[in-house]
């Protein structure tokens, strides 16, 4: 089944570039150049995902998202040149599922589109078992010692696996390096915690689409690490 993606931006060249990337990945695309056109396109087509700019004439991305959310739960990824935190938080609060900051990496766009589509179409994902830990797209089957992100298995080292298990079982809680070290290594920490930081960076590179801008495994600078509680999806 091919998915239809609505691309909406007031810059036509960006829309064309995204069209080329997404078409080459086998998606169908519908183009719109402002919020009103996007709303009309959603009414006329069966849209599975929307990529939308925030700063647009006539009706901006935030308002359009709010309008769309009145009657639809189609995934929305906001494209924004405003790299300010306030805009991101506002967009996510109003009902957007993810965001990508301009200038974006085409690979990141495709990865995020795939991730959102997989979650939107998998209808509840894997069934929850007693040994199953799930946060967003990350699922850990403890009995099988297997971790999947958006359904694709990820290979982790035992230490990375244990760190992830610790964080997944306490979503939202911040663990300092020393705590993680004591829990995972079962040794008192004697200033050798920076190995934890290195492991976590590796772990982030494996499960995050853009490790420099993580969505799930977050660094709380000066305090520790955490898995985002209630992360999108």
């Amino acid at each position, binding site marked *: 089944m091919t998915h239809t993606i609505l691309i909406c931006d007031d*810059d036509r*060249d*960006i829309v064309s*570039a*995204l069209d*080329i*990337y997404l078409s080459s990945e086998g998606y169908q695309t519908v183009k719109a150049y402002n919020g009103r056109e996007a709303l009309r396109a959603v009414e006329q087509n069966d849209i599975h995902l929307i990529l939308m700019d925030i*700063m647009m004439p006539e009706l901006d991305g935030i308002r359009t998202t709010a309008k769309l959310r009145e009657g639809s739960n189609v995934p929305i990824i906001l494209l924004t*040149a*405003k*790299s300010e935190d306030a805009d991101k938080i506002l967009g996510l609060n109003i009902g957007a599922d993810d965001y990508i900051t*301009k*200038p*974006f990496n*085409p690979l990141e766009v495709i990865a995020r589109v795939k991730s959102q589509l997989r979650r939107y179409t998998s209808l509840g994902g894997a069934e929850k078992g007693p040994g199953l830990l799930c946060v967003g797209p990350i699922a850990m089957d403890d009995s099988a010692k297997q971790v999947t992100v958006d359904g694709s298995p990820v290979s982790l080292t035992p230490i990375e696996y244990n760190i992830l298990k610790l964080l997944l079982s306490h979503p939202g809680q911040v663990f*300092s*390096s*020393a705590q993680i070290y004591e829990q995972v290594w079962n040794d008192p920490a004697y*200033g050798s*915690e*920076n190995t*934890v*930081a*290195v492991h*976590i*960076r590796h772990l982030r590179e494996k499960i995050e689409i853009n490790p420099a801008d993580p969505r799930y495994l977050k*660094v*709380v*600078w*000066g*305090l*520790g690490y955490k898995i985002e509680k209630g992360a999108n999806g």
Partner: protein
Amino acid sequence: MKKLQESHLSKVVAAVLMLALVFTGAMFGLKAVQAVPYLDRESYQDTAEFYRLCRTFEDQIASAFALARQLEAENLTYVERQQLTRELEQLKQSFDSSATNFRFVVCNDAGEDVAFNLNTAEELPAPVHYARFTLGEPWAEELDEDSYAAVEATAVEDGVTEITIKAPAGSVSYTIEYAVVPGEQMLESGVEDALCHLYLRYDTATSTFSTWVGVAGSCLVLAAACILFLLWTAGHKAGAEGIVLTWQEKIFFDLYLAAMLVAGTAIFAGGWWLLEYYYHTCVEQQGQEGAWLPLSIAALCALFAAVIALTLRTFAVRLKGRALARTTLLCRVLVWLWKGLGKAVRWGLELVRSLPFLWRTIAGFLAYFLANVALFNEARYNALAGAIWWLLNLAVLLLLCRWSMSFRKLRRGSQAIAAGNLSYQIDTHRMPHELRCHAEDLNNISKGMAEAVDEQMKSERFKAELITNVSHDLKTPLTSIINYVDLLKTTQQDDPKALEYIEVLDRKSQRLKKLTEDLVEASKASTGVLSVNREKIGMAQLMDQAMGEWQEKLEARKLTLVTSLPEGETWVYADGRHLWRVLDNLLSNCAKYAMEGTRVYLDLIRGHGQVSLSVKNISREPLNVPPERLMERFVRGEESRTTEGSGLGLSIARSLTELQGGTFELAVDGDLFKAIVTLPQAN
């Protein structure tokens, strides 16, 4: 009510009514005046008119006796005798009881009745009056109580005095006893002589006086009411808001009043003169002067009332219109004089103020000193001078106190402004002139400075906004460039040079992306528009995390990280994300500019409430730039700008550190580069 007040007709009616009432009142008043001679008299026989009539009768009786005596003389001619007889007859007829109401009995000194005009069996009616005359003297002397001293009186019977006068020898004296017929009998008998008329007039006057006075009084009261109504309506005019001043109010009030006083006095004097004349002729003398006299007196009264009403009206209008002072010449003159005086005083003060301060001080002190000496000398002889001396010194002391208090206020204000409170305004109320000028200058300076600071803040904000907007506008085309370069890479390129060019495009567009991002961050950090969420942050944890991020990249550059930490966790209050950016930038600098194969030292030191983190590395290139310059925007240690840095890293790091209340220092010692971030320690 308002309609009535503004109606022209009502005013005219009231004015006419007022005049008519005064006129009528005056007419009735004049009638009442007629009764004035009879007031306070016991009866008509107590009036002056009655006495005058009686005197006439007495004289006539005396002359009749005189005539009779002349007739007795022998040497009279016939004609003379005839003439005297006729005169006597006339007198006798006039005293006939049917012609007059006057009754008398004449007695000689022997007590015999010698003449009378009583009817048969008629007695003298009470009260009886007495008079006495001596033959040869043509007038009678009336006897009343005042004559007791001159005459030797013996009481004959109750209430009646028999008087004997020592007459000269050879003369014969007679006593007249007389009375008037009672009023009822007079009217019955129908004898209308002067006595009867007097009796009737007296009766009418006494019975109607109170009526006339009442009527005249009511008329005057009503007239006063009319005047009050006129005063109430004065100044109101239909179709006009407020009080309307007429031509009368254009005349100065004092002039108007003077004119009215003159007119009023003239009218009053004229009226008074006429009244006197009327009283004298018509009332006292019972003369008939015709109707013109009372009419003209009443008319003058009405005229006088009109003058009073006009004066009161204009006074009321001026009061209502608040124009009394304005339309009074005296007030104008006084105000003008007052203004002139004020101007003169101000001019004098200005003159004093225009003198240099030093001169004024010297002049003031000299004046004080001389007054002091003079008063002190004088005080030995004069207690008043002593009191003034005390008062003078007390006043000077108070003046000095006021000066120093104001000066203290000024001092406090300038301290506040110096401390940076630019919105502070010194209260210049009740300050001496010199200090007030100074305080106002300071206020203006602080206001100007506050405005300048405000302006600067605004322009910084504006700059930050501009940079944000520009970089936002840059990012949109940059996104297209990056994407299309990326797409270009996927196309088939036969020419190896084309691949090389695409590679350059790719690299440079990525650099441009980094530059724009750094530019926005640097501008936000330096203008303070970034939000700072300060929390308790573990520095050891942060360093640990930073090393986790950077260790491998540094190792790839053959750089070794050496850390030294104090025992336990070191807490600071900072915004974790911003602090991470500082550390990230510093480590990124190490990765970019440190000489390969050297060590990078990360030291954390705490003490004296401060926590400082230092990053040291050996520069690959010689650092020929002073450390202050290194922190400026777009300055890099090497002159050739070929490497990937934007030159903003240190600037951003410094701005972010300062935003969190810390300090950022750089030190360069040969090739050793050292950055120190100092933050206050949290407990």
